[in-house]
């Protein structure tokens, strides 16, 4: 409780300090370059100078925070990746050389590609069909809320939920995990799902698909509603059936949105860490890059190797960054 109280006090102070900064810095600027009650030329000169400075007062804290927490670390990580475990001795590309011949790293790359293939595709697919179907039924809103709900659950929470579903008891004893109970009910043999090499990847992916389908559904549902009625009506008049309309008229019109959903989930997949840590911690050949990086940084306390793995993740993200900026510029240019 005392700690929460301290947090609230700190928070109030922080908020006050922040507000005071913006208020006082603006006041100061108006004092140094006053424009009210001044002669014409002086007032307009001061107004111009203040106008040139003020945006940077507004942007200042944000630029400092972005620089310190996102821009500087990119270069910092690059620097660490070229140094040894303590960041003291320059080792050139040694960390990368080690990386590419490390079995666990190769395993992680392989698994990450599996994740990249499966999770965005299935999440988008489920999201799309659910969006298309729920838009047509009366209780669609309710259905959407329930499918959207896992979005609010933490990856760790979701991992516990699904680990319980995958729970395994030795053959003969009663299965309390839903999946094994179903398998036994239909006459199969229970399995320890998350320790089955290769296949366990898919059981872990199911968790992320479960979480992300709601996201895809919400975005795609809005896109489907944005399709001009006339295009659909024209197709109906021309005698197209439901499937033709969906695949030939509607889907082509929302390709852009589908691509956005796909890339957003792709980025998330590259960063996925909590699920693997909580479910297997990379055992049974289920390692992924983000968890490998964490384990070298934290347990291996080798900053050089950790930074090298982080850079690999970054390199995989760069095409998406480029694509995003291009899209956003086109969009902002319109304003």
């Amino acid at each position, binding site marked *: 409780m005392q700690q929460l109280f301290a947090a609230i006090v700190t928070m109030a102070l922080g908020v006050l300090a*922040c507000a005071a900064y913006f208020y006082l810095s603006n006041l100061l600027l108006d004092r140094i370059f006053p424009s009210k009650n001044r002669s014409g030329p002086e007032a307009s000169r001061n107004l111009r100078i203040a106008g040139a400075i003020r945006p940077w007062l507004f942007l200042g804290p944000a630029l400092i925070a972005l620089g310190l927490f996102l821009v500087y670390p990119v270069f910092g990580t690059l620097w660490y990746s070229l140094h040894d475990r303590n960041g003291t001795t320059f080792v050139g590309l040694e960390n990368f050389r080690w990386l590419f011949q490390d079995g666990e790293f190769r395993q992680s790359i392989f698994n990450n590609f599996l994740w990249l293939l499966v999770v965005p595709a299935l999440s988008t697919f489920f999201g799309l069909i659910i969006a298309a179907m729920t838009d047509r039924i009366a209780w669609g809103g309710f259905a959407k809320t329930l499918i959207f*709900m896992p979005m609010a659950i933490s990856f760790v929470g979701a991992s516990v939920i699904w680990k319980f579903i995958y729970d395994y008891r030795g053959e003969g004893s009663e299965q309390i995990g839903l999946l094994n109970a179903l398998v036994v009910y239909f006459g199969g043999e229970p399995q320890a799902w998350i320790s089955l090499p290769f296949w366990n990847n898919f059981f872990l992916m199911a968790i992320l698909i479960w979480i992300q389908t709601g996201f895809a559904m919400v*975005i795609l549902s809005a896109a489907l509603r944005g399709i001009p009625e006339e295009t659909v009506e024209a197709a109906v008049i021309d005698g197209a059936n439901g499937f033709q309309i969906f695949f030939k008229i509607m889907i082509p019109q929302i390709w852009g949105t589908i691509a956005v959903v796909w890339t957003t989930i792709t980025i998330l997949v*590259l960063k996925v860490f909590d699920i693997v840590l909580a479910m297997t911690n990379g055992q049974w050949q289920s390692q992924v890059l983000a968890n490998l990086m964490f384990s070298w940084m934290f347990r291996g306390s080798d900053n050089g190797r950790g930074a090298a793995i982080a850079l690999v993740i970054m390199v995989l*993200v760069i095409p998406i960054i480029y694509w995003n900026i291009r899209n956003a510029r086109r969009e902002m240019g319109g304003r």
Partner: protein
Amino acid sequence: MIASTRSPLMWLVHLTVAALVILWTIPTAGLLISSLRDKDQLASSGWWTALSSSTQSTVFRAPGAEAQVEKDGRFVISGNILQGQGGKISAFGFNSRDPGAFEAGTSTTLPGNETLTVAEDGAFEISSPTAMEGNRGQRIFYTVAVPPRFTLDNYREVLRAEGLAASFINSLTVAIPATIIPILIAAFAAYALAWMPFPGRALLAAVIVGLLVVPLQMSLIPLLKMYNTVGGLLGVPGKGYVGVWLAHTGFGLPLAIYLLRNYMAGLPREIIESARVDGASDFEIFVKIILPLSFPALASFAIFQFLWTWNDLLVAMVFLGTGNDELVLTGRLVNLLGSRGGNWEILTASAFITIIVPLFVFFALQRFLVRGLLAGSVKGG
């Protein structure tokens, strides 16, 4: 819209959606139901059987000879097998090779010539015409049908003994300031980007879009080093709440600025220009006009940031530490997965405590969340 509502295809749509909804909610439902079950029942039967009584086969050892009393010329040991717990006994036996040999309510003769009677409600009686000997009591095997038992004991247990209560407060301490600080900073920056002309504005906006997706992993090592250095200079530990708040602020800013800039840029130009004509300064325009009008966007981002900081594991683990007092809920849950891997009564209750706040926020404020999502994904062409 496409298929008419009367078409048989609509039935397929209803059924498919219903199936998908069930598929998507069952995992969480299972967790919630399990967390409320008695821990012995949870460990012995699936949660989908929670409403039917479960059968358990187990053993009871009757008291030894010192408990016998003489009654009507016979020596009797009596008591109740179930010891006050509810249930209904269906069968019993005295030999482990045939633990359900006799139906409840009947009598049988034990090897030592005593008579054993077990009733359905658990009452038993061992009687003998001669005094019984020996300190070790008779073992009675029985099969009992236990009625479903629901309890809050699991929650009491995890809140008290497993440190969930402390972690809950830690999570709040992390999440609330980490939500509010970036909003303040981002709102001013977004206004500058949307409404104040300055050289390099377009470039800056593009950089921020680029920063949206820089992986968190890139920042961890340099920031941790920096924190340790700064902490060393100031004579304070490098890990702490201030560090976590600032880190979350930095990581949340690109999305905050992006969302708010887009929203503010969409506000009508006339309002802002007429205020300028009236002699209002940018600061006044921002505080009196833009901020109130931007409430929906501010709320959207606040919800995002709160969910993200509450649900975050990585930032808290790296910048706050993994000691027992420092764990946030997600970190505690990961630890419990390691140390209490098989104790599902602990895990389900703990997991539900970690997800209850986000779920509440989700159901209460879903509208803003959807709006934020729609504005937050970079739209394609």
